């Protein structure tokens, strides 16, 4: 697994503490696991939605999985709560199934509308997120195809050249 830490400002603050390990050489999403039945959730929770037990432990999620479903966000979301670029570009979101763990809802980068496919292998990446509201330079998590060529500039939007939704 490769994480794009070399191109991300590692001093940038994570968009939310406790969401993923950061800064870290190999960042991981931070979930929780039910001590009674083993159910994995993300983000971490104190209770189990399957067995109703209330004792969970921190669990670092796998960094690779398969794209389970996806869609395009075709219009700029209302702000608040959205803090992405004012100059809007449609972006991809989806769920990545981490085998035996959980399906994580995520921004999808490094692939466009013409090539995105259910079932494609995906890996965790940490990407810059510039808040258009607070002007803070933050980082958030996303997934990209395992074989994706690195876009020259990372944004939270999908490759703008072919997501003209």
């Amino acid at each position, binding site marked *: 697994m490769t994480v794009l830490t070399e191109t991300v400002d590692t001093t940038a603050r994570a*968009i*939310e503490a406790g*969401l993923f390990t950061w800064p870290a050489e190999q960042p991981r999403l931070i*979930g929780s696991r039910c001590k009674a039945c083993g*159910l*994995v*959730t*993300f*983000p971490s929770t104190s209770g189990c*939605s*399957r067995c109703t037990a209330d004792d969970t432990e921190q669990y670092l999620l796998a960094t690779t999985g398969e794209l*389970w*479903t*996806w*869609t*395009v*966000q*075709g*219009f700029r*979301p*209302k702000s*608040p*709560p*959205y*803090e*992405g670029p004012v100059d809007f570009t449609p*972006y991809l*979101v*989806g*769920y990545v*199934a*981490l*085998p*035996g*763990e*959980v*399906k*994580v*809802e995520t*921004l999808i980068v490094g692939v466009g*509308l013409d090539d995105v496919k*259910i079932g494609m292998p995906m890996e965790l990446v940490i990407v810059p*997120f510039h*808040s258009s*509201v607070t002007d803070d330079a933050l980082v*958030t998590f996303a997934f990209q195809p395992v074989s994706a060529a690195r876009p020259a500039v990372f944004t*939270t939007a999908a490759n703008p050249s072919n997501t003209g*939704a």
Partner: protein
Amino acid sequence: MSDVAIVGVGMHPFGRHDISGMEQGAFAARAALADAGAQWSDVQYAFGGSAAAGNADTLVSTLGLTGVPFINVSNGCATGGSALISAYNAIKAGAADVVMVIGFDKHPRGAFDPQPSDYGIGDWYGQTGMMLTTQFFGMKIQRYMHEFGITRETLAKVAAKAFHNGSLNPNAWRRAPMTEEQILESTMIANPLTQYMFCSPGEGGVGLVLANTDVASKFTDKPVLLRSAVLRSRPFGSFEVFNPSLADQRGNSPSVAAAKAAFEQAGVGPDEVDVVQVQDTESGAEVMHLAECGFIEDGGQEDLIRSGATQLDGSLPVNTDGGCLANGEPIGASGLRQVYESVVQLRRQGGARQVKNEVKTAFTHVYGAPGISACTVLSV
């Protein structure tokens, strides 16, 4: 135990209006009373709600200060359905013989803008652009199409049918028919769903007068029996809106449980239903909800819809008033609109949109965030 009848229905047309949501609620309530030949003073209990247009119980200052117990209901997209269930239970429990249900709303233009904290989710979810119902709908039907072979043409057929039915409904918002091509070629909102495959937040009001069947004949010689009214929240493993993660193990949607319970309580099966109203926030929702509610097996919708069965002259007419797609979604009123339309169809008062076949049993289904479903079975 008493049975429950609907003896009066009223609606303020859906769409965009210059009056407040509350006034639309009052209009609908008065229309329902007039339809029942009842007075506001006959009402012994009232339940009502809106998501964005104020407290329903304020309506007493317009309808009359009779001292009636009036309970505000707030349950997201199931607000109307929850008010109806409360009224049903009040009559069943013997707390009242005549009960009013009112739902109304008036939303700003554009997509809903829910805040993550209201759903127990961190701010990051909204900041990074994932707090959108539209994404959920796109992702759910995208997966469903992948698993069960539903095509985009079928999604377009659902929307075209909705706008056709809406064109025949004087209370509908969108009254211009659209071709499948126009629908497919409209702006992409959340792949595979285009602009005209989605409904819009809107305005409107619905009032219903319910009565114990023992006293129903005082109001009407054509009571419609409300045979069941059921609400369920989501079970483990379901795929719902606003979920930063989904369980590895897949489970049923809350609509499966709600519909099953509604049929069991009513003592009828899906095969006995003559007219269906299901939540069609977007085209894919109608497709999937037909299966979740037990009317067809997963994947069977492709042939069902192509055959024309879900049209007004088909064997299983669906969303005969144009559904959410043609009526928009004023949250507090939306689920009650389905019940209103079922009563209209059961009474054969649908005019140009009256279904061709005989209608003895009707079914309604409303679904919304964060994974709730309410169903009813009605009959004459």
